[in-house]
């Protein structure tokens, strides 16, 4: 027996159609010779369709999830992770990295990505924990809003006279940060209590 893609199966179970017969049909067709690409395509399109349906059915919860997620990210960035997100300034103010700056060595922007990733993973976790009775697609919506926000920010930066390297920062960040928000949310969704009408 062939094993279907593990990640796709997990995503389907958590975010796709809750119908067990539907999952069984997908597995049956996969065993009958359909490709892994076909399986992934079915899963992604099903999650998209389910998420769109969830948002149409629960617009208030979707909006609340986006607001809670971004507000919590802002609060954490401002009050809990400020030093971590500005670690170069923190080190500089303590005289620890002055030599590097004086000799033309700075910290690259990508060195902030782990801290930013952690920030959005925590915000995704908070969204999941505060929306345990909401449909799981709400988390997909929040992750998409993170991607959109950073993409918008990156495009806005493109229109402004910044150093060339900095122009693409927001654009490059949008997907990995959305993934972090999504993964953080999945960790917070372990005790999900939403009951979908089947």
């Amino acid at each position, binding site marked *: *027996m062939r094993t279907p893609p593990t990640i796709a199966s997990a995503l389907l179970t958590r975010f*796709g*159609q809750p*119908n*067990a*017969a*539907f*999952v*069984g*049909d*997908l*597995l*049956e*067709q996969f*065993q009958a010779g359909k490709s892994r690409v076909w399986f992934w395509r*079915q899963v992604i*399109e*099903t999650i998209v*369709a*389910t998420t769109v*349906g969830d948002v149409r059915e629960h617009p208030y919860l979707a909006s609340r999830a986006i607001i809670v997620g971004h507000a919590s990210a802002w609060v954490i960035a401002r009050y809990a992770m400020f030093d971590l997100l500005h670690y170069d300034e923190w080190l500089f103010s303590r005289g620890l990295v002055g030599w590097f700056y004086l000799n033309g060595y700075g910290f690259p922007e990508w060195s902030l990505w782990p801290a930013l990733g952690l920030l959005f993973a925590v915000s995704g976790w908070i969204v999941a924990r505060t929306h345990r009775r909401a449909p799981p697609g709400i988390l997909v919506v929040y992750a998409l809003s993170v991607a959109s926000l950073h993409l918008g920010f990156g495009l806005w930066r493109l229109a402004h006279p910044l150093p060339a390297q900095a122009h693409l920062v927001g654009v490059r960040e949008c997907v990995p940060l959305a993934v972090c928000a999504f993964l953080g949310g999945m960790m917070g969704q372990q005790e999900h209590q939403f009951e979908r009408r*089947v």
Partner: protein
Amino acid sequence: MSRHHLTDFELMILLAILRIGDDAYGVPIAREIEETGGRSALLGAIYTALDRLEENGLVTSSYGDPTPERGGRAKRFFKVTSKGLKAVKDTRRAFTALWSGIPQLKGGPA
């Protein structure tokens, strides 16, 4: 009298169930639509439409036995109800009426 207006996709699903007969579950329905109807259909979209049709009383469903190749999940078999059959006939009547008398559609291949 309340009448359910079928979308073309719902009509295809109902016709596929009628063509398949007793063994109508997700996989053969998708295959029938693809092979006979000439249209590729996502299983997720088929189930969404089937749930809607069941809510409207046009189909009923029952579960079979779970099998290993389906990861221990049961098949969900669908049957068209008398209301569903009437909806199919009504839709065909409406299409036939709309079809007739159009000069551009006369004489060409079906």
